């Protein structure tokens, strides 16, 4: 479920973030492999794995009870410094926690009352509440269940989870958009500029569902950096070149125009790279689409069990046509094959190897040739 509302950002949740970081910390203390949420596409596999992990670990994420959750910190000391739950340096600052706790208490209606218990628990380290909060906004979702698709928090219409097949319960990560940023800038300006504005104030002004003070805070930090250290920015990528602007003004026009030409050259190369990247991405997507389509055909082929074991490639082509005719003409039969997976595997493997005869269909080849000639033109 994702809305196309473009005025707000997207919250991307990824269940492996938490588990990844817990994994890091737990490796230091526990020899057992901690559970994680398997985000893999295979629903069947993930369930099987989860069950497997349940049996073999004392620490279980797959629980609905709050008490287990509270016990969790004792089992895994999350006090290690390398734990980064969020991509930010703000973890563990006491004043943040207080501020943020206030926010939670006043603004998050969708959260169970139990959250407050955790927050005021002074035994718990500063990092814990943040982790737990960000693990799940929805009241039910203390268990990181793989297969639920939709974030349960109400009023989430404005900040959809991006369409990933992973569960939604872990930290909702913010994906900013230019529109959202504009709203942010407006709010900041209303509050008197980037220096005067506080995250709390900005958050209140923006009135965006699902936006947390944490998001605003880190964004504000970036914003301030960008304003007062324009370019090259301190974010790392750009190398430190001492800008000899003074020298530039004393250079004669010829050199300065040479520089302009060099810049033009640079931009041309960059444009070219970008263009190629877009083309490449499109090709890659199309390749996957074709693969998906073929997979579907093969699976249907298995179901009908027609010519499933024909080794000759010519028969496969023929059978595909036959099959397409069958699929279009007859209603779907109920599966009679004992195990389509087993039947399918040799077929699929063979198909992978014997792509050439199948793919010699002129249309597909022409497509690929066409696209490669487009880029060379």
């Amino acid at each position, binding site marked *: 479920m994702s809305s196309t509302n473009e005025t707000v950002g997207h919250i991307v949740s990824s269940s492996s973030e938490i588990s990844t970081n817990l994994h890091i910390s737990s490796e230091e203390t526990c020899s057992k492999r901690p559970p994680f949420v398997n985000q*893999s596409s295979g629903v069947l596999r993930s369930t099987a794995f989860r069950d497997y992990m349940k049996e073999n670990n004392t620490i279980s994420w797959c629980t609905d009870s709050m008490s287990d959750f509270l016990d969790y910190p004792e089992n895994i000391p999350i006090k290690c410094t390398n734990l980064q739950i969020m991509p930010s340096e703000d973890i563990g600052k006491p004043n943040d926690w207080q501020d943020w706790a206030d926010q939670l208490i006043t603004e998050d209606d969708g959260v169970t009352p139990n959250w407050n218990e955790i927050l005021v628990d002074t035994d718990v380290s500063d990092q814990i509440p943040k982790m737990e909060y960000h693990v799940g906004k929805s009241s039910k979702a203390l268990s990181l269940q793989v297969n639920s698709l939709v974030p349960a928090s109400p009023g989430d219409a404005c900040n959809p989870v991006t369409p990933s097949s992973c569960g939604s319960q872990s930290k909702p990560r913010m994906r900013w958009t230019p529109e959202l940023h504009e709203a942010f800038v407006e709010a900041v300006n209303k509050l008197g500029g980037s220096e005067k504005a506080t995250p709390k104030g900005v958050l209140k002004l923006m009135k965006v569902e699902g936006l947390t003070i944490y998001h605003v805070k880190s964004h504000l930090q970036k914003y301030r950096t960008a304003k007062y250290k*324009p*370019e090259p920015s301190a974010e790392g990528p750009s190398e430190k070149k001492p800008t000899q602007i003074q020298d530039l003004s004393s250079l004669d026009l010829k050199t300065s125009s040479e520089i302009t030409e060099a810049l033009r050259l640079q931009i041309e190369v*960059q444009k070219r790279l970008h263009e190629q990247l877009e083309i490449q991405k499109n090709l890659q997507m199309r390749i996957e689409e074709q693969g998906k389509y073929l997979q579907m055909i093969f699976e249907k082929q298995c179901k009908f069990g027609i010519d499933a074991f024909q080794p000759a490639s010519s028969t496969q082509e023929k059978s595909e046509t036959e099959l397409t005719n069958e699929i279009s003409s007859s209603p779907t039969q109920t599966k009679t094959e004992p195990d389509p997976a087993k039947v399918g595997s040799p077929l699929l493997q063979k198909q992978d190897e014997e792509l050439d005869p199948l793919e010699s269909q002129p249309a597909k080849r022409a497509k690929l040739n066409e696209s490669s000639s487009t880029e060379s033109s």
Partner: protein
Amino acid sequence: MKFGKRLKQHVQETLPGWHNMYLNYKGLKKHVKLISSSLECEISEDEFVYLLDNEVEKFNVFFMEQEEDFIIRHEEMQQRIKRIIVNEPSSQEEYESYEQEMSKIKKDIVDFHGEMVLLVNYSNINYTGMTKILKKYDKRTGGFLRLPFIQKVMEQPFFTTELVSKLVKECETTIGELFPAMVAVEEMTKATGTVAGEGIFKNTVKALLTMKEIRKGSSTHSHFSLPTLNLRDIELIRSFQFSSPIPII
């Protein structure tokens, strides 16, 4: 040269701070080799998936951080340009500082454009690496991990680079306005003398050439592989790799 080596080379030459953010292709490849080909070994498959998920997560986090930065910087850039252009110089001193500002921002915006393109490149290289490693895995174990997994990958934030591409295009528009007339690449050959061998430009040149190399026909080239890349002016682009005595400021 194989993909693994290409990737390693690319990572070494890439922007500082990005080094650890690329796909751990070598590590994953090792893992694949260790995996037994028995299909009952669900544990190792899930372990592999776990590793892959971690990689995807790593990409997502990094990508979205960068994207957020770009959004902010893009807006700031626009504001900055407006401010400079509005202050039309009237006196000689003002003119000089105006020129200085203009030069600086021209350089900055071109570099900014380059950074964004490099992020798109980052996304693409990692995606390519993922498909390759998955293909290796399937080949090794006879499994079918690749197709569904890659479908999921394609929905991930790091792969959906549309926003960054949009910013890139907007940047190009702005640049087009700043630079009076765009000259054809052939005419820019005289400018090669002033191209420095460092910084963003070097990275984009290398990225372009790496892309070409990666897409050269390989032993496993099939109709499902990407066609080889034909770049015009490939020799010209190659010539940019050598640093010149006159560094661009």
